[in-house]
């Protein structure tokens, strides 16, 4: 499984936060031990009494200078440490905002329960849409524009950056940069309904040439299938239930309510990052998505085995 860890930074955003984490952890641990030590000292040092011991009322008449000095010193130290942590927090904020001009803009729209990923270009023929996988070039800052189709979601890929909420009616952005190639897992981090738990995605950082090759392949419409069974599958897709929600560029299936499947076979996972994209899982998903993600918006699709085989053959051509 690709990593999804806060303490495994592969980019400057996550790294700045990780540094702040270690600083804060050290300071907090020291303070915690100090407080516990003070309590332990008080516990073990204080003479024992019992409930009939008359209460010591000397503090009502004599000022307790020692305690006062001790507490004032402790509070001053705490305040100083808090100031240090606040300044560290602010300077991490500044570091997060100083990634530089983005070389790529991606628009991610959150749906219940999948991620629509759109790569726009000033030349419309170079724009394309995919789903549940975000590819970025290594070493270049990327700006992700965040929109929500229905309810509030949150994009979180901890190895790369902190999270940002996708809120309907508002636009937000997230900038990040991957400094090492690899595949990283992210997950929706704002409760969005029945299948919030199964709304994951992969973020794949490729060396720039590999990224360009991927993007070039994505821009192409789906190829005309070569074999008869695949063509039968394509017809089933377009004329049957699939085309009512899914789009495949190059066919007449152009609906936008489900993920775009033009290059579905080149994705590593299906069902929003939940299952490996293999024929067996795909067959099970198509026939009965509700048994895997009850409450997702994809209905069950009972069909004859021959139809299923044709459909799977066609989907396998969508590389």
């Amino acid at each position, binding site marked *: *499984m690709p990593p999804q860890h806060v303490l495994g930074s592969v980019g400057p955003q996550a790294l700045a936060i990780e540094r702040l984490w270690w600083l804060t952890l050290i300071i907090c641990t020291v303070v915690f031990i100090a407080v516990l030590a003070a309590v332990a000292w*008080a*516990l073990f040092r204080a*003479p024992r009494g019992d409930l009939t011991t008359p209460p010591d*009322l000397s503090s009502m008449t004599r000022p307790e200078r020692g305690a006062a000095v001790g507490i004032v010193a402790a509070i001053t130290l705490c305040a100083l440490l808090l100031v240090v942590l606040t300044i560290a927090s602010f300077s991490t904020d500044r570091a997060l905002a100083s990634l530089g001009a983005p070389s790529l803009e991606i628009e991610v729209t959150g749906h219940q329960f999948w991620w629509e990923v759109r790569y726009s270009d000033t030349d419309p023929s170079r724009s394309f849409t995919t789903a549940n996988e975000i590819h970025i070039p290594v070493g270049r800052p990327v700006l992700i524009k965040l929109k929500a189709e229905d309810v509030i979601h949150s994009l979180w890929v901890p190895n790369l950056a902190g999270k940002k909420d996708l809120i309907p*009616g508002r636009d937000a952005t997230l900038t990040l940069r991957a400094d090492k190639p690899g595949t990283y897992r992210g997950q929706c981090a704002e409760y969005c309904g029945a299948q919030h738990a199964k709304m994951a995605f992969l973020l794949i950082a490729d060396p720039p040439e590999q990224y360009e090759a991927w993007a070039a392949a994505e821009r192409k419409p789906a190829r005309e299938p070569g074999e008869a069974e695949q063509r039968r599958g394509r017809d089933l897709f377009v004329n049957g239930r699939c085309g009512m929600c899914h789009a495949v560029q190059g066919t007449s299936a152009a609906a936008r309510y489900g993920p775009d499947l033009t290059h579905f076979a080149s994705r590593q996972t299906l069902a929003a990052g939940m299952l490996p994209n293999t024929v067996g899982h795909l067959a099970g998903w198509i026939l009965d998505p509700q048994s895997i993600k*009850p409450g997702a918006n994809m209905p069950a699709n009972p069909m004859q085995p021959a139809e299923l085989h044709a459909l799977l053959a066609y989907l396998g051509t969508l590389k």
Partner: protein
Amino acid sequence: MNPMLEQTWRDPPGFLGALAAIDHKAIGKRYIVTAFCFFLAAGVLAALMRLQLARAESTLIGPDLYNQLFTTHGTAMMFLFAVPVMQGMAIYLVPLMVGARAIAFPRMNAFAYWIYLFGGLFLFVSLLLDIGPDNGWFSYVPLAGPQYAPGKRADVWAQMITFTELSGLLAAIAIIATVLKLRAPGMTLARLPLFCWAMLVTQFMILFAMPAVMLASTALILDRLVSTHFYNPAEGGDALLWQHLFWFFAHPEVYFIFIPGLAFMSSIIPTFSRRPIYGYPAIVLSLTSTAFLSFGLWVHHMFATHIPDLGKSFFTAASMMIAIPTAIQIFCWIATMWTGRLEVRTPMLFSLAFFFILVLGGLTGIMVASVPLDLQLHDTYFVVAHLHYVLIGGAVFPLFGAWYYWFPKITGRLMSERLGRWQFWLFFIGFNVAFYPMHHLGLQGMPRRVYTYPADMGWQPLNMLATAGAVLIVVSVLLFMVNALRSYRGGMRAGENPWGAGTLEWASASPPPAYNYDRPPVVRARDPLWEPISEPPAEPTQVIGLAERVREVLVTTVLDAMPSHRLVFPHPSLWPFLSAVTVTVFFIGSIFTPWAVLWGGIPVAIAVTLWFWPKRAETLEHLAVEKRP
């Protein structure tokens, strides 16, 4: 025991008498027992959640039921257990601690209890009927809005808020009025017990914060029922408005729960250190400044939204700053223990646990107070760990300590010390085993509010461990119930002051009679029971001259508790209960149709009018004791 006073002040007997009861001790006990029942119910839901999460891809509980469970667990714990139990402790103890015969506005106080009970039952009955809310205890829109939350589940949640907020506001008014106007003569504000200071501060916070959530939830019901557009971005509304209104209330709410925990600490530690608390003025100022500051933190729940960074930074600074007043109190308690003579009984054990658990939770709070760190930790199991450490360590542990501490006063019997220690250690160990691993789960990427997780994320071992800890917590709570029930029936009898404590409630009998004090005391010191009696005793030492056949109470001034005037308090009455029933019908009806506001309002108006209708017998009573110049 004064039979005439007992006759005057007691609640009527029987079933109808129980419905008409207004004695603050009866109402306080009801609040505590009811809140404990909701605690058990919400705890069962949590146990089910932990059973589901113990194994990856478990099919024990499906997503729809799980979402109702976690929503109801959070909602019930926050609204039906934590805030009401603290108000219940205040309702029981504050009049005794300030030397009063009764709580102010006793019938309104009873009404507040019934509204609370009916609102809580409404929530749980809905859960049993598959109408349990399923949008989280925070019920964000648009998920809880008219388009994405079909049916009445979100309305049940929103209206339960209305019940509990109404109840909370009314109980707050009663407690504030008691602390400010019904104190024994001589109990200046500088001599007010820290318990009462903390409760006073909390109730003021309730007054200011609860209207925000009532507004928010009412706007939500309006959006869902009659198509207003408060939260509809397409028509000029805003999804973020909900978050601001909700968190403006909900952040102070966690302090409604935490500050009473501090009240318990400030009561228990001096008793078991055999000395008055160190730093009384500092603690009073800390409590007050915590209350003010807590209203300036709410955006730290919204750090992951697109609010401008400059604005968020302000809330980072404020969230860091609020640690200081709490730290002051912690250091004052440590100083008290350091210079005292310690006796560690069960209440003290629970208070000591605070230093471990709450401090750890507070430090993780410092972590999430920082915007960039929070962007990683928000909505993960790290925050689940943090919130349980601060709420359970800061409020529930001291609450258990408080129950052990005041059980002898309330019931006249001591709880078993041996069972208490067993319960404490089971709870302490179980709690840490359950919740500490969640810090690591959050860092390993596990988000919150998920009904399951993939097997190869590597999260199962720690989840399994957390579930094991939860089992220990269940055992410890069962042990507590066993201890309480056995002690209630046959525990060692406690005298008036089994702990040798210094505050006024320990001067009354255990349990106190209906009239609390035969003659209300005159107070000359902060810990009245500890002050040595001077020779000759300073006069006067008690309040005399209050009528015995009539419910007469002495009202004193706000700052210096100089006697001001005498007031005749109302009799027990069924009208608070009946009014609560009509209000319940009104509230529940109005989530189904706006006409319920009209048709439901009529019985409410009738009931409340009859409640306040003057009664000839009572007027004659007032006239009989009136002293003319």
